[in-house]
């Protein structure tokens, strides 16, 4: 009896610890997120992301996801999470490389507040936090 209680108490503690860890996971300081993005994309190491750096990184990621190399992300290549909170009715659930490619510049420009062709400082923080911000706006 006592043994069971201890076990139950321990598993409750574990669940709590797990929740705590999940909370810590969600509450990463924005600086960390930005640093991770820079680590992935900042080829010349200047602490900014240029359009060229972004274009190259994004297309490589798209192509790596396109396992069957048909120029389209669909099915399991296109996780449902990507549309979470975006408020889009998307029956097809597929995206062609050309459509993706055409959207790179408009999306970059949306975050490049001062239009200098580089994401830096607060622009970069907003860009790095974009998905999380969208997921949190999910109804």
């Amino acid at each position, binding site marked *: 009896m006592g043994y069971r209680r201890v076990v139950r108490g321990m598993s409750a503690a574990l669940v709590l610890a797990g929740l705590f860890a999940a909370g810590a996971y969600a509450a990463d300081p924005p600086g960390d997120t930005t640093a991770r993005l820079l680590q992935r994309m900042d080829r010349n190491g200047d602490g900014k992301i240029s359009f060229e750096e972004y*274009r*190259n990184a994004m297309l490589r990621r798209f192509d790596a996801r396109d396992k069957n190399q048909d120029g389209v992300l669909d099915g399991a290549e296109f996780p449902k999470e990507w549309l979470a909170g*975006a408020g889009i009715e998307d029956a097809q659930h597929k995206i062609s490389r050309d*459509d993706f490619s055409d*959207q790179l510049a408009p999306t970059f420009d949306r975050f490049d507040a001062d239009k200098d062709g580089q994401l830096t400082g607060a622009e970069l923080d907003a860009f790095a936090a974009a998905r999380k911000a969208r997921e949190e706006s999910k109804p």
Partner: protein
Amino acid sequence: MKHLIGVLSALLLLFASARSEAETVRCESTGGDYRSCSIDGRGGVRLTRQLSSQGCWQGDTWGYDVNRIWVDRGCRAEFSVGGSSSSSNKDNAVAAAVVIGLVGAAIIANKDRDRRRDDRYDNRYGYGNGDPRTTIRCESNGNRLSYCGLPYRGQVEVYRQLSSSACVYARSWGVDRNRIWVSNGCRADFAVY
């Protein structure tokens, strides 16, 4: 006044014709080889659509002068030649969401690598995320030539330049069979895909 109008309309005409003459040229480094494509580059050249996963970096793996575009190391792209810049303004909400989704995946993948935990987005289906299989640091100190071994064959690209001296393919870095070479003060982490 008449002169001014004449000059202005001539300029306008010139502008309008330059605009309409924008031409799309596809230039592709297939098999990783250097390739050049003849053009009239006086009106400028812009990369409008990158077709390759392999990097297209201006001045490194692609460039142009008055009569040619060149591409190298697997860069394949479409270029707009001699036209004014026209950006496509058609917003595609799904595409925009996917762009942001992939940015998030990049951040989370990195976090996973850092912490070896929770892989809810990228590895659920065993999908590659576009990260290099490995990176190798190779440094030319005092402008000397130096070599760094490659563990396996793969596409090699500059991942992060560490030096203020530019790392430019064939000039200050290159790949020679199973090793990378660097010179002229190029210091960088190289990605092997």
